[in-house]
């Protein structure tokens, strides 16, 4: 039954974990310096540790303000604080769990007729103001110190990045510890007077009922961190101010120090021992400490980027939050008391109906101390095994991840290298092929020239022959033998036409793509004209062309002229140049 009533406190813890983990790891996770999973594990562990080991100080102060001595009342007070927080968060108003719970307790005081200790209230309110201011002062001092150190040390930026990652983790752990220590009072503080008396003995250490309560509260905060803080973390970095990793480190540390100071009883005692007034141990708002620290850094940077309206809204929150929570609490207590007949306080009050229900008979304080150490060895072994399993799993996970990352990285490099090698071989292959083709073209061109020359020679021979025949005809007496000799010569050389055909085939083959380009450009050329173009491309003289085409030199000139006309060339255009450009 106690656990049922505790549920409202756990809800408060859950919302606190979801919101305030972002203050600690928000900028680190948002800027990808620390992985979310790592941040969550560290924050959860240290929040619980802080709550159990150091949660008592701030809870005491809350108890002094108003000891909610009935479980129903505690349930209502925590629920009202939770509802106020939830509702004001929905309205995007700055809200602090600490202020809500204190307002709700004052509401309970009013309802139950308890006097509110003004000095304690004064202390609490003064720490609310002091929290952000101290945050700013710490941030400024730490910032200057870090800057001084970094300027002197000349660490390589990339090494500094590695150091910062670890520092953010360690300081985040300290921040989470302080958050647990200071803020667990908000979550379960009101339940302390009505906690059942249980004593768990683990051999090494023992947990009494109150510490167990803190453990449960810490766990509820941790659950909030695990389940719901990611979204808040991703937005918090950009929300307040763009922070460098160094600034984030300073701000988180300053905030953690503020929370630590207001929850460490040993520090308070130490200060008292040297004759100074002790530090009041009060739950302060983690968000406001963070905002104070950010303002400090902002001021140091010359006041740029500070949103002063945020400051105004926070100050307004100091007044409005407790009043709203107090009012809601007062009204709810009235309902709980009169409608649900739930006992919300012990003692006399004119407004109290002395109706009794089963709920009233809940244990409000210990009647008999319940000592449990029967399961001590069993519990002890289970916890050891669990811790071992978690450690082994965590180590395995990190080593696997590292391994896969390294493999991935080497794979990429290897891929690049093989790609490069492949491309290089391709390139050399193509180059060698090109060289081969060039050679072939050269060879064919030479062959062509040879054939052209042989045709020219043959034609010259025929010319000679004609003159000889003319001479024979001019002679009066024809010699049969000479004529038959001549005939033989002619027959021998008759293969000349075959040669010409072969030459034409060669030219066509060699100039196949040339013809294609030529026809693309001048589609109305005849076959003979194309042929002429091919010869012009070979840079042959008109005389040589005439002998190849078996026409007179003059005809070649005429043909060239016609070709120029067909190609629409002007006087200054050079035919052979234009053809060679094709």
């Amino acid at each position, binding site marked *: 039954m106690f656990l049922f009533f505790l549920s409202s406190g756990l809800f408060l813890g859950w919302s606190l974990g979801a919101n305030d983990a972002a203050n600690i790891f928000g900028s680190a996770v948002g800027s990808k310096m620390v992985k979310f999973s790592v941040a969550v594990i560290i924050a959860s562990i240290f929040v619980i540790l802080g709550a159990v080991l150091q949660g008592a100080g701030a809870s005491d102060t809350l108890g002094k303000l108003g000891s909610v001595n009935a479980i129903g009342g505690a349930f209502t007070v925590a629920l009202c604080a939770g509802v106020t927080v939830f509702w004001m968060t929905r309205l995007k108003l700055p809200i602090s769990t600490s202020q809500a719970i204190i307002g709700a307790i004052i509401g309970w005081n009013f309802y139950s007729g308890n006097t509110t200790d003004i000095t304690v209230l004064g202390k609490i309110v003064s720490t609310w103001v002091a929290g952000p201011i101290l945050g700013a002062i710490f941030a400024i001092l730490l910032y200057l110190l870090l800057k001084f150190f970094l300027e002197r040390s000349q660490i*390589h*930026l990339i090494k500094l990045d590695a150091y910062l990652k670890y520092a953010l983790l360690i300081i985040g752990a300290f921040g989470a510890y302080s958050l647990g220590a200071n803020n667990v009072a908000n979550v379960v503080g009101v339940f302390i007077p009505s906690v059942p008396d249980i004593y768990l003995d683990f051999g090494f250490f023992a947990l009494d009922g109150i510490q167990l309560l803190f453990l449960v509260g810490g766990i509820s905060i941790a659950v909030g961190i695990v389940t719901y803080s990611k979204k808040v973390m991703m937005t918090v970095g950009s929300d307040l101010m763009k922070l460098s990793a*160094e600034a984030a480190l300073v701000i988180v540390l300053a905030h953690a120090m503020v929370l630590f100071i207001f929850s460490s009883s040993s520090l308070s005692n130490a200060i008292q021992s040297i004759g100074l007034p002790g530090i009041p141990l009060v739950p302060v708002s983690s968000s406001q400490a963070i905002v104070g620290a950010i303002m400090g850094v902002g001021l140091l940077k010359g006041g740029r980027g500070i949103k002063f309206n945020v400051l105004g809204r926070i100050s307004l929150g100091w007044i409005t939050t407790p009043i709203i929570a107090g009012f809601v609490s007062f009204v709810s207590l009235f309902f709980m008391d009169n409608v649900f007949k739930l006992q919300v306080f012990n003692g006399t009050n004119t407004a109290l109906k002395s109706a009794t229900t089963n709920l009233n008979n809940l244990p409000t304080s210990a009647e008999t101390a319940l000592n449990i150490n029967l399961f001590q060895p069993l519990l002890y072994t289970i916890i050891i095994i669990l811790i071992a399993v978690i450690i082994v799993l965590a180590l395995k996970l990190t080593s696997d991840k590292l391994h896969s990352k390294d493999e991935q990285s080497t794979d990429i*490099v290897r891929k690049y290298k093989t790609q490069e090698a492949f491309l290089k071989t391709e390139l050399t292959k193509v180059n060698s092929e090109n060289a081969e083709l060039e050679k072939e073209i050269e060879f064919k061109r030479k062959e062509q020239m040879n054939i052209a020359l042989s045709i020219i020679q043959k034609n010259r021979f025929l010319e000679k022959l004609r003159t000889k025949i003319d001479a024979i005809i001019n002679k009066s007496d024809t010699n049969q033998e000479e004529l038959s000799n001549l005939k033989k010569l002619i027959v021998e050389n008759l293969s000349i036409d075959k040669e010409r055909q072969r030459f034409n085939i060669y030219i066509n083959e060699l100039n196949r793509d040339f013809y294609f380009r030529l026809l693309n450009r001048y589609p109305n050329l005849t076959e003979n004209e194309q042929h002429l173009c091919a010869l012009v491309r070979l840079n042959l003289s008109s005389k040589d062309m005439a002998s190849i085409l078996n026409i007179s030199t003059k005809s070649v000139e005429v043909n060239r002229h016609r070709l120029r006309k067909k190609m629409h060339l002007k006087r200054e255009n050079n035919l052979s140049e234009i053809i060679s450009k094709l």
Partner: protein
Amino acid sequence: MIRIFKTSKNVILNIDEYFDTVELGILNFKEGINNYLEGNLSEFENNLDKVNKQEESADAIIRKIENDFYVHSLMPNYSSDILSLLEKTDDIIDKIKDNLSQFDVEDPYFPEDIKNDFSRLVSLSVKSAENVIPAARVFFTAPNLVKDKLQKVIFYERETEKLATKIKRTLFKDMPFLKLSEKIHLRYFTLHVEQVAEASKVVAKLLSSLVIKIKM
């Protein structure tokens, strides 16, 4: 997370090696052009070869660094800026390689009267590149000292520009014996050499903005 220190050490070594390579490339460029102007063509070929190799190795190193940055998410806030700084530095050695290969391919003719000025132009342009690399190096360890070094880079870049203008004026106004094509050719080579200083100026500007960005 556990081996982050080892990774960061490797990346630091790679960055140093990268800057060494670029610096050697710059020196070879200067040597190469002076060899060309003096007619030591075999030496020039040697320089060209070295610069080609250095450019390739700089590319390989930069790829490795990029890979490490992304895989191990180093300096997540500034990774893109730092990688672009390295890329822009790579532009210097790319320009150098292109320049030398243009000398090799186009074989420009330099009249005697202009050789001296051109050699000075090369050394000024190279000086701005030579000064930007130490600035980039010191950015990683002491960002406050970057600004002093950048002054020199900007100064030499301006001087390069002045001398280049003077050379172009000489080419077109005082050298009637050169053909127009030769003048234009030499004008292009003047521009090519100027580009090395300009690439250095780009790196310098990026560095100065990075210093502001990275300041706490």
